[in-house]
């Protein structure tokens, strides 16, 4: 089974002073020594653990995106986008920031980082990446990954991801995460050397398996249902929002035609001409105002999308609990049946079916020595089983404790963020209404002067 608590080798120590809030927080660090100027590190465990404290405030930004061409694993030419990640440390005293690290990463490397985190922190609701392909598009946005607007929104999404990880009290201390920000070359090899890929595959398989768990922690079952509902309702909302945006775009843009026709008409009018012409100009302004309005709304949609994907991560933690619980139940069941077998062998009564018992019946009794041997084997297995059960129980409880703590943290973050997003949506609508009032008031004046 995967490790429950983070491998000490993978953690930078000690813990940060305080858990952090929103994604635009900066990473606070404990006192320590030479963090800055620490260039690309090799993966030597202890040296890392000792030296790499997050010394001062760290600012992380994904500041640029660049188109690149290269050769892929199959030696075929491909085009991809690379993102520049800059890390700055901020001096407490004067607030100046110094660039400490800067490197380029592509989306697939972010995915690698996240998959690694998923495997080694199964009890954490791991922040999601921005979407791989543009979904919930309305007609103006292209679904092309190379489209500059899409790339820009992805850049912001990736920055957000890094900030979320950096502000998570546990994830921020991960060594691989630190190397992601600081070691350009060789990072992929380093990650792969952890052997997480194998565990990633088995994790996925397990998460998707169907099984019936008898006694899950009810709170996790509830949260699992909640995550399903959240996914469903946000998808629905995003779909309809995209359609609303599409229609609104249509309304505004058709008004642009008035501008052109008024202008042409004004040519034949003497008294009415000026009024028509200037009103037409306002129609053009109105029609073009929708572009910025919908661009802003796209950022709102991205905020909702983040929680759509977060819901998946939340679900995964619940599923992990169910898996562990199921495993525990199976182990307990197995132990119980072994105990029973042992008892029957000892007392000579056969209540449970065993193959050995049947063959004995069919082919003749076994000797007392044979029976003793079997009992001994079973007793050993029972012992082992009891040990395992004990440790599984402990693991299970640890997991529940830690996972629930992170779920609570996630819930608070989610409530804050969603509220903020909805309020920002209202602010956008207000701005749109004010623009509309202005344009049409101007147009009305032009019309009334005709």
């Amino acid at each position, binding site marked *: 089974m995967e490790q429950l608590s983070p491998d000490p080798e993978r953690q930078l120590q000690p813990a940060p002073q305080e858990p952090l809030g929103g994604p635009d927080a900066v990473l606070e660090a404990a006192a320590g020594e030479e963090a800055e100027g620490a260039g690309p590190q090799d993966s030597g465990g202890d040296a890392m653990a000792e030296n790499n404290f997050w010394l001062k405030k760290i600012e992380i930004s994904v500041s640029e995106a660049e188109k690149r061409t290269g050769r892929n694993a199959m030696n075929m030419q491909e085009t991809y986008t690379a993102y520049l990640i800059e890390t700055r440390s901020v001096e407490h005293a004067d607030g100046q920031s110094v660039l400490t690290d800067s490197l380029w990463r592509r989306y697939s490397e972010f995915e690698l980082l996240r998959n690694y985190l998923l495997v080694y922190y199964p009890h954490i609701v791991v922040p999601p990446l921005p979407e791989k392909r543009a979904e919930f598009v309305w007609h103006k946005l292209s679904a092309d990954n190379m489209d500059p607007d899409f790339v820009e929104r992805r850049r912001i999404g990736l920055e957000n991801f890094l900030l979320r990880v950096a502000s998570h009290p546990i994830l921020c201390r991960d060594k691989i995460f630190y190397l992601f920000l600081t070691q350009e070359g060789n990072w992929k090899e380093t990650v792969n050397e952890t052997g997480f890929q194998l565990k990633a595959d088995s994790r996925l398989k397990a998460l998707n398996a169907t099984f019936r768990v008898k006694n899950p922690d009810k709170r996790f079952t509830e949260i699992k249902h*909640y995550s399903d*509902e*959240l996914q469903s*309702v*946000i998808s*629905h*909302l995003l779909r*309809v*929002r995209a*359609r*609303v945006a599409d*229609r*609104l775009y*249509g*309304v505004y843009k*058709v*008004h642009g*035609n*008035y501008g052109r*026709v008024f202008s*042409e*008409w004004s*040519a*034949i*009018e003497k*008294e*009415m001409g000026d*009024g028509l012409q200037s*009103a037409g100009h306002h129609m053009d302004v109105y029609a073009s105002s929708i572009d910025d309005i919908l661009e802003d709304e796209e950022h709102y949609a991205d905020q909702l999308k983040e929680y759509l994907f977060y819901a998946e991560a939340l679900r995964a933690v619940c599923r992990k609990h169910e898996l562990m619980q199921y495993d525990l139940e199976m182990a307990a069941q197995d132990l119980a049946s072994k105990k029973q077998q042992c008892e029957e062998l000892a007392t000579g009564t056969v209540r449970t079916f065993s193959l050995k018992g049947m063959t004995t019946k069919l082919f003749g009794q076994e000797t007392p020595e044979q029976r003793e041997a079997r009992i001994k084997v079973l007793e050993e297995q029972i012992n082992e089983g009891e040990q395992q059960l004990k440790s599984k129980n402990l693991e299970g409880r640890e997991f529940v404790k830690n996972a629930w703590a992170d779920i609570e943290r996630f819930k608070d973050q989610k*409530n804050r963020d*969603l*509220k903020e997003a*909805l*309020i920002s*949506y*209202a*602010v956008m*609508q*207000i701005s749109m*209404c*004010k623009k*509309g*009032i202005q344009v*049409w*008031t101007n*147009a*009305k004046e032009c*019309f*009334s002067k*005709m």
Partner: protein
Amino acid sequence: AGEIPGGGAPLPGSRGSPGLLRVDVLDLDEDEDDLEVFSKDASLIDMNSFSPMMPTSPLSMINQVKFEDEPELKDLFITVDEPESHVTTIETFITYKVITKTSRGEFDSSEFEVRRRYQDFLWLKGKLEDAHPTLIIPPLPEKFIVKGMVERFNDDFIETRRKALHKFLNRIADHPTLTFNEDFKVFLTAQAWELSSHKKQGPGLLTRMGQTVRAVASSMRGVKNRPEEFMEINNFIEIFSQKINLIDKISQRIYKEERDYLDEMKEYGPIHILWSASEEDVVDTLKGVATCIEQCCKATEKWMSGLSESLLPIVHEYVLYSDTLMGVMKRRDQIQAELDSKVEALTYKKADTDLLTEEIGKLEDKVECANNALKADWERWKQNMQNDIKSAFTDVAEENVHYYEQCLAAWESFLTSQTDLNLEEHSEDKL
């Protein structure tokens, strides 16, 4: 042109009982004695001058300013109302109730109520065109809607047509010449059988067909000597026709897009309510957003009904007007062509010169009358058009401002409630 808008006067073109006239302008229902006096006096008065005997109030004075014609009191009020379906063995058709209230002497009564069907309106239009070939006769709504109509008599279609027919009759009533047309009077007052028999009089179908054939033939010859001023008018009409058609299409399209937007918004709001059911902390915020969206939907509906009341019918009427105008220009050209061909015949001595000269004299008069009538009516029409367009678009702009103001109020009130909540929460934390 058209009815007096707003406050002082009666006749909203709506269903139900026709509005009463303002008491101090003309009280037909309650004061029969006064009516008699007015009727008698009306017959003595020159129709084109303002009658000092007609009581006026400041409000009716204001209303008069809105008349496009001379400051004459309106004395003919018409409503088109109450469409009814009639089913016979051969056909199904709709009739409309036409109510006329008048103080004019030449009318036998002060109030008339008749039922007319679309065919009857068509007949009237034809008669007016015959009697006044170079006047701009108001347009009728189309016979059939070209696309998207399954049920010929669905409610929207009937209502749109009713409003347009109402407009049609009122425009005629406001026209200085057409308002006194005899066929118009018959249309407004005759009972069904009277109208049928009246229709049968006058030039028969064949005669009219003959006229049409001659007209087409002469128009195909083209007009060589169209005077400069009419060239200008024709040029205006061509461009106006193009532009108004485009504006009609644009306006219809905007209406359609807005309706689609409304449909989506109606689905959008409730999703927030659905979501709030799974949340604890964010419930109020989500419900607040849903409420705002609902209020925006209401504002959109109001906006849409405003557009379909004011802008769309006006623009569409002027689309039909532009066809009318082209027809009027053609007829003027035909009249001139008749003269031109006779003059040409005279030049080439094709027939008896004395007879020709006499005919030419008559035709010259005819051409001059036609041209003058057209010129005067053109100026009048143009003025009306500018007023109508101006007022229609001003109304649209006003509706839009109002729409955005309503939405703004909804969102601002939501925002305030959210910030108030935040302040409350913070002060609770401090306690």
